[in-house]
């Protein structure tokens, strides 16, 4: 069935189809529509779930962990300040190997206060041990909501999954979305089965301490688990295509990269404007291409190195900054390229912080700058002749 939905609404539909048994809900702009829609679905009976009105984001994820510890499929959602307030629980859930799915509306973090979209919140938590995906459009958001549980709950992975949607730009914009049937969804996503849970026949002690002898081993196994997601993501997308007919491209999505001389690497919904710009430059004879990173964790080192192995230069366009250094996505991409002895010149373009607009001409200027050569780290609209 096709419906005209916002990114948030589409994601909520995907969660409905995923049948979470416990939902813990705390509102924060621009995620609120998700928890509102889910509460309506519970009220009208289209979603059978224990809906818990928690009193903070820390409690939202703590409650989801408690539910997951019973073997129940759990869901929560947040953004920005909320993500940071529950940050302790991010590490806790990842270390506890609870395959919770959480939607994060990418939003700037205070100070100054700002409710608009950038990617500083989720990117600051890359080290927490969660799988992190970045959707470009509402259809992908819905599809990732379904795929996320399949990936997270796979016994080889057993890792929580953060599904990121650009705040306002994706969460609140509308497009035509295909909503699968419950029958299709149930065929794709079986019930959650695990030994990592309370058991009255074989009682367990969970979320315990581990000293110097064994702690390192637990952490290594968690690392292996999230790395295993690379393979599981590919398998899941194959199965997704077989049932729903939509094909996804794995950890990254390449556009005209095979013969590109200049590539922009980016995350999320800005990728569409980048592809349009690449098309326009191609008409001018410039071989431009775009790599959209879909998963920042596990990080697609090999795929990125391959995509950038033939270019003269690439630019990482991102909506975040790691203060005192450079953009985090650039750090990850640059490392991937250099690990394979890539020869391309890499450049970092930071923009869009606090929801500041990135225009088509900004993106064209990025391509033009890397063709000419420019500073290693650039700030769009500051010190580039386009101040203010």
């Amino acid at each position: 069935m096709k419906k005209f939905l916002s990114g948030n609404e589409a994601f909520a539909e995907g969660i409905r189809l995923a049948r979470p048994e416990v939902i813990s809900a705390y509102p924060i702009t621009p995620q609120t529509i998700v928890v509102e829609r889910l509460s309506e679905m519970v009220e009208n009976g289209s979603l059978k779930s224990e809906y818990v009105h928690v009193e903070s984001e820390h409690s939202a994820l703590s409650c989801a962990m408690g539910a997951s510890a019973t073997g129940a499929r759990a869901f929560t959602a947040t953004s920005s300040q909320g993500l940071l307030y529950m940050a302790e629980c991010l590490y806790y859930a990842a270390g506890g190997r609870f395959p919770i799915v959480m939607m994060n509306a990418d939003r700037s973090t205070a100070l100054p206060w700002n409710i608009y979209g950038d990617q500083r919140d989720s990117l600051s938590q890359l080290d927490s041990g969660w799988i992190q995906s970045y959707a470009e459009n509402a259809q992908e958001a819905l599809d990732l909501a379904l795929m996320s549980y399949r990936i997270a709950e796979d016994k080889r992975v057993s890792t929580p999954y953060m599904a990121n949607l650009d705040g306002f730009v994706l969460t609140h914009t509308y497009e035509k979305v295909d909503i699968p049937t419950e029958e299709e969804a149930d065929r794709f996503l079986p019930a959650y089965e695990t030994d990592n849970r309370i058991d009255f026949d074989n009682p367990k002690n969970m979320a315990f301490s581990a000293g110097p002898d064994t702690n390192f081993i637990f952490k290594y196994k968690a690392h292996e688990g999230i790395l295993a997601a690379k393979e599981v993501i590919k398998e899941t997308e194959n199965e997704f295509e077989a049932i729903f007919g939509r094909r996804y491209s794995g950890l990254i999505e390449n556009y005209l990269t095979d013969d590109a001389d200049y590539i922009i690497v980016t995350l999320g919904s800005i990728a569409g404007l980048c592809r349009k710009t690449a098309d326009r430059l191609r008409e001018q004879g410039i071989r431009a291409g775009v790599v959209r990173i879909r998963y920042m964790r596990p990080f697609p080192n090999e795929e990125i190195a391959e995509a950038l192995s033939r270019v003269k230069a690439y630019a990482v366009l991102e909506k975040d900054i790691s203060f005192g250094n450079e953009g985090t996505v650039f750090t990850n991409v640059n490392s991937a390229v250099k690990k394979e002895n890539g020869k391309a010149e890499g450049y970092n373009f930071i923009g869009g912080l606090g929801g500041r607009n990135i225009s088509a001409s900004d993106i064209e200027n990025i391509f033009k700058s890397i063709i000419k050569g420019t500073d290693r780290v650039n700030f769009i609209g500051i010190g580039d002749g386009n101040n203010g």
Partner: protein
Amino acid sequence: MKPYIREKKVFGFDDVPENTCFEAGYLVTVNSGWRSIRPVVHTEKCVGCEQCYLYCPDGVISIQNGKAVIDYDFCKGCGICVKICRPGAIETEAERK
């Protein structure tokens, strides 16, 4: 079933579980080494009132055939049982190895 000492006490790479989730009541060390004094039940004086059983913080006292019995693997020698016993049936002795 109360927690008890198991055979396997050392956990290498393959033994460490994937998750922070493991069998409940799995013990690998005793607490007997904590004692400098040990409580001893004089059964002829013990009336089986069960106060020591109720008030032991470590749960090492059980009542068997109406008399208090102490599990010396896990008794820490705190002496609460000595104090609480009204007939004075429990006395402290120096810990012996």
